């Protein structure tokens, strides 16, 4: 992956019309996310962080403001298949095998067919031997790994992860958090991760944007200067815990502004 595009949001806002009322999902946001970094968007449920991600993906149109990725609009990047997205629901096609689903990621991205790349990716996510299985035969964690492999199969310049581990049990999630980062670090794509797990955000990302309840604004912008790979000793470190505490505090202050005011 040669290109590591910056993501630039200028005055980006989004509101929806619901039953004739306007609901503001994202308040005007200005931020620049450096290329090749992983940025985590953290915030309470329903705060609009997934909407922000969909705006970056070009799946929704902004109500105001502009987003540029490298020198392109999200739509342009999407149209030349420069981005890949992993969803909360693995969204595997049930009639395709594991191999077929991963290969679909390449096909949709208009990359030439390459069974070796597909098989290597399946091996990389630890599913060798399961190539011929259907999604229904896999556990939730395995399905999510197939979805990650599918996202990587298209060789994206920008990887968008929308709570990809939310539906996975805690132990599996921990394992995926350990095993998967090296995959995309090696590929060097720019990436944005939406999560509401503080530890996950600190562990995976280079920078954390804490968002307020709806409409989403940037409440805190926290750099994560921890060394990589982030093995057990990093997770046990004081720096790691301090960062977790900082993010948690930022979340608390903005989630319950009333309680803060009362103190």
């Amino acid at each position: 992956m040669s290109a590591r595009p910056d993501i630039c949001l200028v005055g980006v806002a989004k509101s929806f019309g619901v039953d004739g009322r306007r609901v503001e999902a994202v308040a005007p946001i200005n931020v620049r996310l450096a290329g090749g970094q992983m940025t985590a968007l953290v915030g309470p449920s329903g705060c609009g962080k997934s909407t922000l991600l969909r705006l970056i993906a070009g799946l929704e149109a902004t109500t105001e403001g502009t987003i540029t990725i490298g020198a392109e609009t999200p739509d342009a990047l999407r149209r030349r298949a420069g981005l890949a997205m992993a969803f909360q629901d693995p969204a595997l096609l049930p009639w395709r095998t594991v191999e077929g689903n991963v290969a679909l990621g390449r096909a949709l991205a208009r990359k030439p067919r390459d069974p070796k790349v597909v098989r290597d990716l399946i091996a990389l996510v630890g599913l060798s031997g399961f190539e011929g299985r259907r999604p229904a035969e896999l556990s939730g964690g395995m399905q999510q790994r197939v979805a990650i492999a599918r996202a990587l199969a298209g060789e994206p310049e920008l990887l968008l992860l929308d709570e990809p581990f939310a539906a996975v049990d805690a132990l599996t999630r921990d394992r995926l958090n350990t095993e998967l980062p090296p995959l995309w670090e090696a590929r060097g794509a720019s990436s944005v991760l939406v999560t509401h797990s503080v530890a996950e955000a600190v562990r995976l990302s280079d920078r954390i944007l804490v968002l307020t309840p709806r409409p989403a604004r940037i409440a805190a912008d926290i750099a994560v200067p921890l060394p990589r790979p982030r093995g057990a000793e990093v997770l046990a470190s004081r720096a790691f815990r301090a960062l977790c505490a900082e993010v948690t505090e930022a979340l608390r202050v903005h989630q319950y502004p009333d309680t803060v005011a009362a103190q």
Partner: protein
Amino acid sequence: MKPGRGALSGSPEAEIFGALRRGVGVALVLLLWELLARATVGSYIIAAPSEITRHMLGHADLLGRALATTLGSAARGFLWGNLAGALLALAAVLMPRGERLLSTLALLVFCLPLVATGPILRVLYGPGSGPQVTLAAMAVYYTTFLPVLVGLRAAPQGWFDLVRSYGRGPVTVLREVRLPAALPYLVAGLQIAAPAAFLGAMVGEFTGAERGLGVLTVRALRALDLPATWSIAVIAAGVSMLAFAAVGALGRRLDLAPPEVLLAPPVARGRRPWANLAEAGLATAVTLLLWKGSMELFGLPRFFAKRPEDVWGYLVAAPGADAHRARLLGALGETLAMAVPGYLAGLLLGAGLAMALTLRPRLSGAVIPLSIALRSIPIVATAPLVVWALGREATGTIAVVALMIFFPTLIACQHGLARTPRAVLDLFAVYAASPLRRLLDAQLPAMLPALFASARMAIPAAILAVTTAEWLATGRGIGALMATVASTSDYGMLWSAIALIGLAAVLAHALVAALERRVLARTSPEQLAR
């Protein structure tokens, strides 16, 4: 679900034992049937299996040729009808704005009474198999259209987002998501279509064909030839069940997961009343335009092909319109007096039995396979027998309508009941709630969407059943009226009757759909969300 079934049928002893038990069961039924027939030999209702066998063997050649003819027409109608249904569904998905209009038109054409369209098609095509094939196609396209439409739309949002996130358009969505997702729904539609096509071809043959099982049916009825009528009914039932089973086996061969919901509730797009009114107005206008336009396009003679304004004149403006109207409405009244009780009885009995079976699960193991088999029997082909058995009074016709609706409703409701969420059932189990309480509070709400879907599908079925029974057996009501005026070339009355039935069907459908939305908004709003 698979391992259990595999383990049971895996052992050869169990297989032999099962076959033995089925064999004994069939023999027992045949014996009872024979005895019953012999006991009631004076009343000309039931032909004994021995008589039927003798008739079949004695006329094997004739019956075989007739069956081949009907099968040929049914197969061609099956092909064209399903093709039309699938393409219509595709068109509706690709043009979401036109979906309501397309659905309404599709329903309207499906509700056209075969009793009337048969003679008209006969005039249009002349001699030959054209009308049979067309009627067979018309009998199947709607039951394929609906499930395929649901299947094309049923994919989760995430799959569409996935394709869009790669910047790919509607064509890729269609190829990678919609079409594969719709495949099991198509197979389910084809399964229902297989017996329906056979029935449509038979009804097509009622109206002046030269060969086929339908011709033999009419002949046997006229001659009060009991063994012949029963033989044909048995053959029709057997072929339908085989066709139903064959498509089912094909689906299993393809290893398709059975679809979740076959008939989704109507989409409520226009929230404001004026939007619905405007849509109804548009549908009416398009219908009238198609009606008149196609007749003008093909240059059909006015004497035979009445335009909308001719029907208006016949019923409202022309001299004698009062008498025409009185005759038509009188016949409609007679028909409704049969159709409505039969419709309600079929629905209530089907839903009631499905609910009763959840209280007695052991029983359902025996009843459900039987009713799946019986659903595929063309009830209409057996209508004369039912009317003979129950008399030409109201009971017979009502029973035919109810029977026609009963089996599909039973199976749909059974399916709906089985979709009660596991967690809800567990909740009731935790509190050791009585089966009745569980049924009323948990399972009944889960069943309602299926019941309403059946209620909508039952409208055309009721029209088909009541008009055919009136025509073949009782000689009353709008079915008999249409048969009479078709034979006397009173085409003004015939087209008026068609228009009235079409209007009644669409109104009934709208009524059920409105009731459905109102009830489901309370019991299962998630069903209406899309």
